[in-house]
């Protein structure tokens, strides 16, 4: 499925794919149709500012736990979301929307 995320000056279309997983763990990948150039440090600081725990980052990615899910965000905008509801790309889409709502996108 596709969702749209609003950034400071543009709307970015994201594709969501279901990854190989089983049982109660739904794993998904989301990637922007046009690669972005996000700043992992800025992303990480946004997440830390709202007291999200377990935020780690380096120059290419941010890794965090968000609402029981394991999230990896690359500077290209690609995301890996693990331990989300199974069989529900919509849940994965909602998760991304909530996550990105935290971020001050004008600094990305």
């Amino acid at each position, binding site marked *: 499925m596709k969702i749209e995320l609003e950034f400071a000056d543009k709307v970015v279309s994201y594709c969501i794919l279901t990854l190989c997983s*089983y049982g109660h763990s739904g794993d998904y990948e989301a990637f922007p149709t046009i690669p972005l150039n996000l700043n992992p440090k800025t992303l990480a600081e946004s997440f830390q500012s709202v007291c999200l725990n377990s935020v780690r980052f380096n120059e*290419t990615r941010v890794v965090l736990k968000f609402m029981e899910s394991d999230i990896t965000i690359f500077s290209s905008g690609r995301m890996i979301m693990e331990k989300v509801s199974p069989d529900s790309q919509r849940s994965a889409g909602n998760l991304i929307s909530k996550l990105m709502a935290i971020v001050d996108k004008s600094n990305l």
Partner: protein
Amino acid sequence: MLLSLQSSFSILETGIVYLDSAAKSLTPAEVIKAMEQYYQKSNANAGRSIHRLSRIATDGIDTARSKVADLVCSTPEEIILVRNTSEAIGIVCHGMQWAQGDEIVTTLGEHHSNYLPWLRLQETCGVRVVAVRPKEDGTIDLEDIEKAINPSRTKLVALAHVSNTLGVVTPVQEICSMARKAGAMSLIDGAQSVPHLSVDVNKIGCDFLAWSGHKMFGPTGTGALYCRKPLMKELTPLHVGGGVIKNVSADSFTLNYSPPYTAHECGTPDIAGIIGFGEAVDFLRKLRMNKELVDMSFSLPERASRELRLIPGVHVAGPTAPGKFISMVSFWIDGISPHRTAAILDEEFDVLVRSGHHCALPFTRGILKRPSGIVRASFHYYSTSADVDKLLEAVRTIARNDF
């Protein structure tokens, strides 16, 4: 040789390290050209039309079938052209005549394509699936197979020649012999073996061999089922329709078994794909004349396995003894999920691998106890020692970073 080989795969010029050949091998320019030529020069349906283009298309399929048959030392009359290994296994599963109480011996190490069909038969036809448990390194104890085969009940022994999770090579010749002695038939899933090993159906002694074209340089949507000739008529065709009949009346029809595969190949096939499949056989056989390349199917994964095991926090699944596994290495990193590992390899190192359960949940979850699966790096003849270097360096960096 390797340089000229790599020039057949323009996709490698993009700088990627392609280590997902067990899912889909790259397609060489020679195969793409053969398919393109069909559409440009002989674009017609095969079989029935009498015009010149149809004759060329028919000849293209016949030639491809002969090449495919020759690859596994069989005859064209024994080859059913299919879309993939799953379809080939489906033809056997739904074509055999089953009775309540019949048993199918298989293993818990199979790809779902060689497991789900039998489970469904168990649900619908009252047959029993006897699944032998491989060891944690993926090897199978022949005694366990022998014990599982029951001369009065086992009707089919169905297992992979090379496992798709760990690349373990199973001694199928001995197993087919056990099946035959017990009066059972044998089906070998050759999806991961035909692309890398010289497979001879006569030496193996199997009744059926299923494999795909897309893992051996061919296009997707191609594959073959070797079916021992006398059994062709015993299998009920999976589909009926165009091209399979000798006669049709208002209320009945007679299937055409001349040549024997006719009854099993319904409708217009993927003609370009089949021609490409034949070309892929030529390409594969040409490469196999180079012993160094053939040996790399063993030596590259062996080196990768040996050196990955030395990296702190990295765990490699599968046997360690040389010769026991081929064409792939599977691993995981402490604290970093397989999907995250694979995404980092792709995103930050241009190394393309596969992650997850590899359509083998009873093995990855039940035996390896890996709820999130494993990372699989798989090789083919275009893979190089430099590819292994890049994989190792990338995994070292990821494991060191620890997230």
